[in-house]
């Protein structure tokens, strides 16, 4: 019985993703395109929001994945700190730019949606503000990875930052709520069928969300592979430098 930790071996990870990645990529492309085309072309206008309701197929999935990407980084950081699997730390690093991009999409679509609905591009609404803060967290996290040269030190420091940052991100969410009551509508998705959006919007939205999830997985797998190779490159370069030092 193979343990899940086997995939934490970089070689095994590369070999496995070599097979899996094309399938995930294809599936992500199909689902994302299907969800967006369904949402854009084949859904009716909302009686209140008109055609702007079509923005939901970008806004909600990207916002969802912006938070989930951070959660994934948090879990990967904890695994790195506890079990010292390099793949885990590198996956966290690989996910950050993807999460930051999703945050940016959520912010941009939110602003564009807010303009006709609320009459302003930007309102310091709690949800928008929280996402802006989340974006700053992503920037800091990526900047720290960039700044520290030794990959193991960088992995450790960013993991600590990710954990502390998560606590402060949650704190900020509540602080911002306290600071300004917002214009933003409640949750679009809910298990309580009475609350969430109507079925005609709901099913294409689910497909879009699946598309964004798969896109995230595909990108993180691809980028983790890159990070594994970059780390190997770093190790080889360090060995060459040491070899030259011994020879000269």
């Amino acid at each position, binding site marked *: 019985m193979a343990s899940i930790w086997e995939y934490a071996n970089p070689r095994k990870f590369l070999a496995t993703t070599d097979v899996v990645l094309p399938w995930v990529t294809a599936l992500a492309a199909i689902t994302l395109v299907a969800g*967006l085309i369904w949402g*854009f*072309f084949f859904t009716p*206008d909302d009686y209140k929001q*008109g*055609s*702007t309701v*079509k*923005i939901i197929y*970008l*806004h909600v999935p*990207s916002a969802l994945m912006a938070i989930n990407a951070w959660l994934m980084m948090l879990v990967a950081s904890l695994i790195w700190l506890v079990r010292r699997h390099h793949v885990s730390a590198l996956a966290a690093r690989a996910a950050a*730019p*993807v999460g930051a*991009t999703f945050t*940016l*999409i959520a912010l*941009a*679509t939110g602003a*564009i*949606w807010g*303009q*006709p609905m609320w009459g302003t591009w930007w309102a310091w609404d709690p949800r928008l503000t929280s996402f802006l803060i989340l974006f700053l967290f992503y920037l800091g996290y990526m900047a720290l990875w960039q700044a520290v040269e030794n990959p193991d030190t960088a992995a450790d420091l960013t993991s600590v930052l990710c954990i502390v940052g998560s606590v402060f991100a949650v704190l900020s969410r509540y602080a911002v709520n306290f600071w300004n009551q917002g214009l933003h509508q409640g949750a679009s998705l809910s298990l309580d069928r009475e609350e969430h959006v109507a079925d005609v919007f709901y099913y294409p939205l689910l497909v879009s969300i699946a598309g964004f999830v798969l*896109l995230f997985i595909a*990108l993180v797998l*691809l*980028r983790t*592979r*890159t990070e594994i*190779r*970059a780390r*190997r*490159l770093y190790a*080889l*370069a360090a*060995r*060459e430098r040491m070899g030259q030092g011994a020879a000269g």
Partner: protein
Amino acid sequence: MMPDLGKYALAVLSAYGVSLVLIAAIVAQSVLRARRVRRELEKAEARHRNG
């Protein structure tokens, strides 16, 4: 084929435009960097074996 977006056409189209550009950007960056690092590693490993 094109749905009638009414008076909000600009908002909807720009939302889709911005998002697709951003997604394309992160995908392109990931793919290009993957290729570059892969090539560099192959070169370094070849050097390592011969040298």
